[in-house]
């Protein structure tokens, strides 16, 4: 196991390098200075901010969901929060009338947030009813994901070519669709939700020993669970509104980090934020370097994530 300080310093260094990489990618071309400045402000800065916020939101929420639902398999995608948000986003993209399209920037984050909250609520209710069975939570999440997947497929059938392209972006994830208005609405939501999760890290630590032990040590388990699920829904909803649904980050980052630094959430959650952000920044950097084609984010996270998760499985993290 790596010492906390070393891990934080390493992750912070990687994060800063990746951030600098994305921002400076424009600097090495031979475009005029004014244009460079314009590109930096209109393209690179939103890209870097999106990658940072989305990566942090998904990884931290994944880690929190795993502890709160007592299930190492939990992940915003797998328990269905992302798919709820994507479904609402898809409906909004296809069904928003012409006159309202200028306001889509504001409607979209709110809609995604509502979608995420609604699926979280359903999952929470199911989890309460199927008390103690953590597999059931995952299964109900899969059911909800499948259902919204089906709904999105139906939407596909009835949409025109232009909308289809927009829709594909939601399903595969992209870091290039954000604009400043979306960031201005989404960023505070993500930051507030993450701050809430960080501030409860030592309470999450108590949850490992089970409800009775946690309650007896002064943690109001029901209240904490409810509020944490809302916080995750807010963070994930905002993330989806910025970058569509990105697979795997919420499962991958916490698991790898637990193997490296242990289970202390006071260390784990901030590191998840740093590493998740770095991961998506690196994905953005890959796209920048290949330039000609814009790579769907989920494609890269899944390509990287699959083998890493198998490694984690073999190390005995999951059973």
């Amino acid at each position, binding site marked *: 196991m790596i010492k906390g300080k070393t891990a934080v310093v390493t992750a912070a260094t990687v994060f800063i390098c990746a951030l600098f990489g994305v921002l400076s990618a424009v600097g090495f071309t031979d475009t005029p200075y004014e244009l460079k400045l314009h590109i930096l402000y209109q393209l690179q800065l939103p890209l870097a901010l999106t990658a940072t916020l989305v990566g942090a939101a998904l990884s931290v929420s994944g880690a929190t969901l795993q502890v709160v639902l007592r*299930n190492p398999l939990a992940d915003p995608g797998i328990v269905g929060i992302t798919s709820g948000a994507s479904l609402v986003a898809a409906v909004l993209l296809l069904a928003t009338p012409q006159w309202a399209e200028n306001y889509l920037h504001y409607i979209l984050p709110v809609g995604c947030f509502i979608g995420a909250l609604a699926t979280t609520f359903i999952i929470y209710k199911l989890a309460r009813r199927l008390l103690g069975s953590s597999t059931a939570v995952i299964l109900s999440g899969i059911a909800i994901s499948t259902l919204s997947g089906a709904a999105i497929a139906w939407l596909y059938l009835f949409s025109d070519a232009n909308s289809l392209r927009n829709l594909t972006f939601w399903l595969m994830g992209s870091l290039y669709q954000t604009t400043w208005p979306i960031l201005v609405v989404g960023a505070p939501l993500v930051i507030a939700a993450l701050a809430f999760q960080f501030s409860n890290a030592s309470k999450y630590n108590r949850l490992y020993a089970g409800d009775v032990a946690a309650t007896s040590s002064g943690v109001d388990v029901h209240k904490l669970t409810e509020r944490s699920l809302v916080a995750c829904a807010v963070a994930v909803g905002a993330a989806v509104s910025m970058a569509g649904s990105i697979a795997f980050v919420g499962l991958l980052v916490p698991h790898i980090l637990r193997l490296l630094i242990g289970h202390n959430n006071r260390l784990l959650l901030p590191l998840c934020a740093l590493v998740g952000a770095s991961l998506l920044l690196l994905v953005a950097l890959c796209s920048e370097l290949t330039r000609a084609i814009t790579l769907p984010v989920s494609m890269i996270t899944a390509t990287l994530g699959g083998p890493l998760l198998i490694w984690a499985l073999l190390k005995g993290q999951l059973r």
Partner: protein
Amino acid sequence: MNAVIQVSDLEIEKRLNGVSVNAQKGDCIHVIGPNGAGKSTLMTAIAGLVSPDNGRITFKGKPLEYWSLAELASMRTVLAQQLELSFALSVSEYLSFYSISESLIIPSMLETALEIATFLNKPITQLSGGERQRVEICRALLQIWPQLLKGEGIAILDEPLQGLDIRHQYAVATLVQTLCSKGNTVIMSSHDIGLSVNYCSQLWLIQQGNIVASGSPSKVATQFNLEKVFECHFSVNQKNNFLEIQVCAPITLE
């Protein structure tokens, strides 16, 4: 009266029918009774983790509802029956989340009785049932260790001896007795009548949600009471300060 815990007419549907008992400061109370008699329910109610349908519980002279969850957490601790963990965290991490100080220091008294130093770095999911139980007891006591040192703590332990080997059963019973002699109050349930009668100061005998008898072990653990509650043949002999109990179950299978 120096009652730390007073329970009067406690009723919980299908579990407890009007239980009234008291615990004085420094009492070492063992709760015995058949499976499903209501031991765990009584103990979780006293711990303030379930609210009763009827009756009242006072804690240090004030009704249980008066105390906040955080105040209760600093005065009393609860050991629940084991549950499966989904994360392979190490024993030392697990314990450090429950200890008061940031760095984990296991008090020597706990280490002597529980002997957990050898597997501090092991993942908790790889421990045997008895080893895990020793870790759980340690975790529960660490939560209020400063209070226990002052002799002001209250520990509610649901079957702490479950799964332990014989040596650690007696070690834990002795640990509990020592804590009580410093002024702490412990309520623990047990299935080992022979051990309990010799290691407690008060014995609560419970059957089908009712307290059948409570008081000093030699008065409660009579042949009549035990045979009535457990439906077995008992012989109880007083030898100096030692109560010797022999059991024989009147069960024939064919």
